[in-house]
């Protein structure tokens, strides 16, 4: 195993050290196709520079995907970027940006298990890459909102046309965003929290 000398591991910068009162953590998963802006969104709202955790895909992944696995290889490393927001002295929110392809999800023991919810980040130029992600979240019963990352050259579609193309129920929130902007990414997370809050209310 390639382990760096312990002297070179610095850990968090002094300003990133959590207070000892930080006793509880929650997580939200940002999921979407390659290049849709997941890492950008994590980076724009995170209080720390985004970090990367990795996991090794062993024989289970071989043969599953022709593009990803190399025949002679028995292990492939998959990385996931994440960031952090201190909600209070006690409560920390972690944001994980993960590739949409479900074959990666099993690597992260319980990534979606226990997550408060998910943000599906979409690019209107490649709507279909999010179909499978949304279906998987529905199957797993993970509540989610859909954030439309507004790329300058992406065609503008009415939200209702997108809702129809994605076959999303009326109650699933859809919101335009610019993942590069902290305020915009924050609004997406607020939309998710309000939606989760509405789900917790008894049905009228």
């Amino acid at each position, binding site marked *: *195993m*390639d*382990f*760096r000398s*312990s002297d070179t*591991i610095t*850990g*968090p910068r002094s300003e990133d050290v*959590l*207070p*000892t009162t*930080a*006793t*509880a*953590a*929650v*997580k939200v998963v940002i999921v979407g196709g390659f290049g849709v802006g997941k890492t950008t969104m994590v980076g724009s*709202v995170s209080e720390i520079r985004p*970090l*990367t*955790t*990795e*996991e*090794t895909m062993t024989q289970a992944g071989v043969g599953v995907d022709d593009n990803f696995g190399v025949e002679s290889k028995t292990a492939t*490393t998959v990385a996931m970027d*994440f960031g952090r*927001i*201190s*909600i209070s002295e006690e*409560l*920390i*929110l*972690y944001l994980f940006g993960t590739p949409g392809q479900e074959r990666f999800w*099993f690597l*992260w*023991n*319980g990534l979606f298990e*226990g997550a*408060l*919810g998910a943000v599906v980040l979409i690019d209107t130029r490649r*709507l*279909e890459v999010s*179909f499978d992600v949304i*279906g998987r979240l529905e*199957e*797993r019963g993970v509540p989610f909102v859909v954030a439309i990352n507004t790329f300058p050259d992406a065609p503008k579609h009415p939200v209702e046309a997108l809702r*129809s*193309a*994605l076959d999303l*129920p009326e109650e699933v929130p859809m919101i335009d965003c610019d993942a590069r902007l*902290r305020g915009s990414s*924050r609004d997406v*997370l*607020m939309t998710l*929290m*309000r939606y989760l*809050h509405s*789900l*917790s*209310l008894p049905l009228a």
Partner: protein
Amino acid sequence: MNSPRRERRKADPALSDPERLYVITGDPDGSERAHLDLVTMIVAQAQPTPTVQPEQAVILRLCQAPLSVAEISAYLGLPFSVVTSLLTELLAAELIESRAPIVRATLPDRSLLEAVMHGLQKL
């Protein structure tokens, strides 16, 4: 819009049942590994002892203040699964303490969500 259309899926009880998920993702070799989430918070309870591995000594140093398993993995540059086995040993030796994450229950905890919203508003 003349783009492809998606078809809605139903929740699959087999996939949304946490116990079932645990069975699927559990260790195939049946080894005893602590159930650590990416956001389980770890806090050191002691200084490194001469018996721990170098990686574990680094974990004990980093976790003087609380740190999530994901952050430990990132700072050490080691895969999540490797970190969880290092942590399992440290837990067994009572050199660290773990704080389980708050997980989504069948019904989300409203006061928790309100706390998160309040925190996000301050950003």
